[in-house]
């Protein structure tokens, strides 16, 4: 195991070599940026759990995937299911470790590193929990670079890696092992069991080696959320915040405007992803004074400016509450709020034909060409 090179002081934006207790708030904020739809229900329980763990066990080394021995077996973890179920039925603490151990037993290996399936939301924090519990480093790479809804919406899947065998370990101590050759089938098999497991489950999937991950995973995504989180914690002026975030994430401000209309559950769900469609109308203040229509599912999936598609999945769209200078979660939006609409490009792989087919606008029932592919 690689030695820890020391902790990086909070507020420093740059390379991260290990994750200590003091990094948790920044990680949490950064993880939220990459999935702004998620509320703050789990914040205190999860961060205090992780902080305590890191304080007891020491910082978790964060390793770039190319610095890890190519033969090192690795496994990804994430939270599967509903965030509010996670708040209602908090983890006993051993779910992630147990899930990984089951795959180890099945495959007869000992995982030398853990990586996040999606470096966003609470799923960005639980791999640190697992790494701390297992005493292995965390790989600075993930499968999504943000969050997508289904477990096969990963770079590994596109690279031909199978998500199975995978184990979902519920808070009640029960688990489900899924072995299916196809990622889509695995997702369906798994999803039908999540409710029974307690609404959420610890998922360990995509067991592979570091060598394969070098080509299959999206590198640098964990240190990226730590850096983004540090910026967000600074609570600076929104204009400065956006330009600083732009330097790290490539994001840009599409428009600043005031929310004038909220349409809730106005239509039946469409597309392939379980979600309630609703939308948000924002009148741009200044500039071209466009009318922005922001389509919401479990996240922001598209932004129309005067009816023209300006951004859409897999772009990551988030809203910054201008008056508070912080990210606005979708459940906190109110009429009259002044918001900045921030568009962050996803990792390049998602704009490939295969990526677009999987997580593009079409998967949300929007049959329009993505602005980046026109």
């Amino acid at each position, binding site marked *: 195991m690689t030695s820890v090179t020391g902790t990086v002081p909070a507020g420093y934006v740059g390379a991260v070599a290990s994750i200590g207790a003091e990094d948790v708030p920044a990680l949490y904020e950064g993880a939220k940026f990459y999935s702004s739809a998620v509320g703050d229900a789990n914040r205190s329980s999860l961060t205090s759990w992780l902080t305590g763990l890191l304080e007891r066990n020491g910082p978790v080394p964060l390793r770039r995937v190319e610095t890890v021995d190519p033969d090192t077996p690795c496994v990804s973890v994430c939270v599967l299911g509903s965030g509010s179920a996670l708040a209602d039925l908090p983890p006993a603490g051993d779910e992630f470790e147990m899930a990984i151990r089951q795959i180890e037993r099945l495959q007869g290996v000992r995982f030398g590193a853990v990586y996040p399936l999606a470096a966003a939301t609470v799923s960005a924090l639980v791999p640190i929990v697992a790494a701390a519990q297992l005493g292995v480093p965390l790989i600075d790479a993930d499968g999504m670079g943000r969050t997508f809804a289904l477990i096969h919406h990963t770079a590994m899947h596109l690279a031909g890696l199978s998500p199975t065998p995978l184990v979902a370990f519920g808070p009640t101590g029960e688990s489900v092992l899924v072995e299916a050759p196809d990622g889509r089938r695995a997702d369906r098999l798994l999803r039908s069991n999540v409710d029974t497991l307690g609404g959420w489950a610890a998922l360990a999937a995509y067991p592979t080696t570091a060598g394969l991950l070098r080509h299959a995973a999206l590198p640098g995504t964990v240190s990226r959320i730590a850096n983004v989180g540090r910026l967000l914690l600074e609570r600076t002026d929104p204009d400065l915040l956006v330009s600083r975030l732009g330097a790290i994430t490539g994001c840009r401000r599409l428009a600043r405007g005031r929310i004038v209309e909220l349409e809730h559950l*106005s*239509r039946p769900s469409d597309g392939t992803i379980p979600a309630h469609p*609703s939308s948000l109308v924002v009148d741009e203040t200044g500039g071209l004074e466009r*009318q922005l*229509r922001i*389509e919401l599912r479990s996240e922001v999936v598209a932004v129309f400016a005067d009816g*023209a598609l300006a951004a859409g999945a897999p772009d990551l769209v988030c809203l910054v509450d201008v008056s508070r200078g912080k990210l606005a979660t979708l459940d906190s939006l109110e009429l009259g709020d002044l918001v900045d609409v921030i568009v962050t490009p996803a990792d390049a792989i998602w704009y490939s034909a295969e990526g677009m087919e999987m997580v593009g606008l079409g998967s949300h029932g929007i*049959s329009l060409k993505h602005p980046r592919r026109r």
Partner: protein
Amino acid sequence: MRTRPSTLPITLGELVRIPPLAAADGLHLADPSRRVEQVVLAETFERLRRCTPHVLVVLHNEAATGGWSLAAALHLAWERNVTAVVVSRTVASPSSAALAERLNMSLLVIDTDPVNVALQLAGQVSAPAAARALRQAMCAERLAEQTSIRGVLGVLNSELQGIPVALVMAETVVAGRAVAVQPRPNVERVEVEVHGPGERPWGRLVAAVPAHGPAAAEQVAKLLRLARPSLQAAWAHTRLDSSSRAEHEQAAFAMLRRLAAQPGDEAGGGSGEPASGRPGDPTAARCGDASGDIDVPAWSSELGWQIGSANRAIWLAPVHPTGEPPEEVTHLVRASWQRGRTGWPLIVQGDGWVSWHSGADPDDVAPVRRAVAAFRDSAAAHDLVIGVGRAHRGVPGLLRSVAEARLAAHVARERGPAAVQWFDQVGPQAALAWLPISEIAQVADLCLSDLMNARDRVALVQTVLAVLDCGGSLSQASLRLGVHRNTVLARLSRARQLGLTFDEPAQRLALHVLCYTLVSMWTESHGYPQTGAAGGPGVAPPGWPHTGRRTA
């Protein structure tokens, strides 16, 4: 060149007047004059992308799932220069209307099945003549329901959205939108004559049609012609209901007076009392110096009144005024006065009636001369005299002319029924027409009882008046009276004895007025009493201040 108008494409404005789009709500109607060449039932955005300009798109299925889909459809429609987008009401939201307005894309919402609507629209677009005929029939139905001129113009203006229509009499807009007659670039003027009773031209319907609609002018003319019978009926209706019209006109005229009086009130001038029409009344006094312009109120034109740059008032008054004229007399006078001049008002004012003519040229008296000449027989029959004022501009000018006409009518009374007096020919002597003759006669009875009891009082008073009129010259007075100078001297001496001390400077003016009044009264009432006066019974002495004399 307009050829075969039936094949000209129908416009959006025409389509929204007939079912099924007549029932649709226009969340935004950008340009009703845009033509619709084709109807597309768009199920997908791909279909929308293939639309050509001047297409009407009915959204359906995937393209009409609401939220983002309508926003995206509107944007695509804007990109493709589509004429309008039709969508189910459930899909549209306030923000859709806002976006349609922002993109200036017509957006109509319907409550019925989009497929059915698209089919019906396709039929209408393919047979524009039939659609137009349907529209005209529906318009005719709505016009037939109207009972007022304003209602008819209201239907026309709502039917021809974006094309203002006005009813014009002479050069005055009587109803509708005045913008129709204002010269504007790229606007074609469509005019349709409206005839009154006896096929006399009564007014014109004028529409200002934007020049870029090829079928528009012809269609508009057709609709205007359709409106004529309703307009004539409405006009006849208001004429028939003469009593309420008379009250309406009277109230409106009082309003007009009040309007003209307002600036004076501010200056601390007059009271708000109704004008008496006497030379001393506040309105008349103010009209003399009225120079400020007052906008002609819209309600005056609704009555058919014209108040232009040269308003000449005519006052019709009974020779022997007895207060406000009875209604039946008003009715007869109105019938006679408005014969052939249906647009001229006739308003009961005090003991007479006022009317006026408005023209552009203040020197053009021909219409008034004709009217007065035509009315003379009726004036004789009803014992009326006619006073004509001068031509003045605007509302204050009209009121001034009314005051002048009234004064002239008073002067005309001297000459008996059917007398016509033009104010231009009256001059300051008109003041004498306003003397309260009976009151002054009473003064004479009380103060000069000796004189009034004298048998030769007429001769004495005439002689004193003649001497005073001639500035004290006995020879001129004798010449005027046709008697010898000594006779004059003798009469003056007797008159002095009876109290007519006219050579006392302090009493001269009072006695002059008194003599004038007595002579006027005796002349007007019964001719001269048999007193052995110089002129003899029934004959006025020569040289009275009045130019006209009762000669009958």
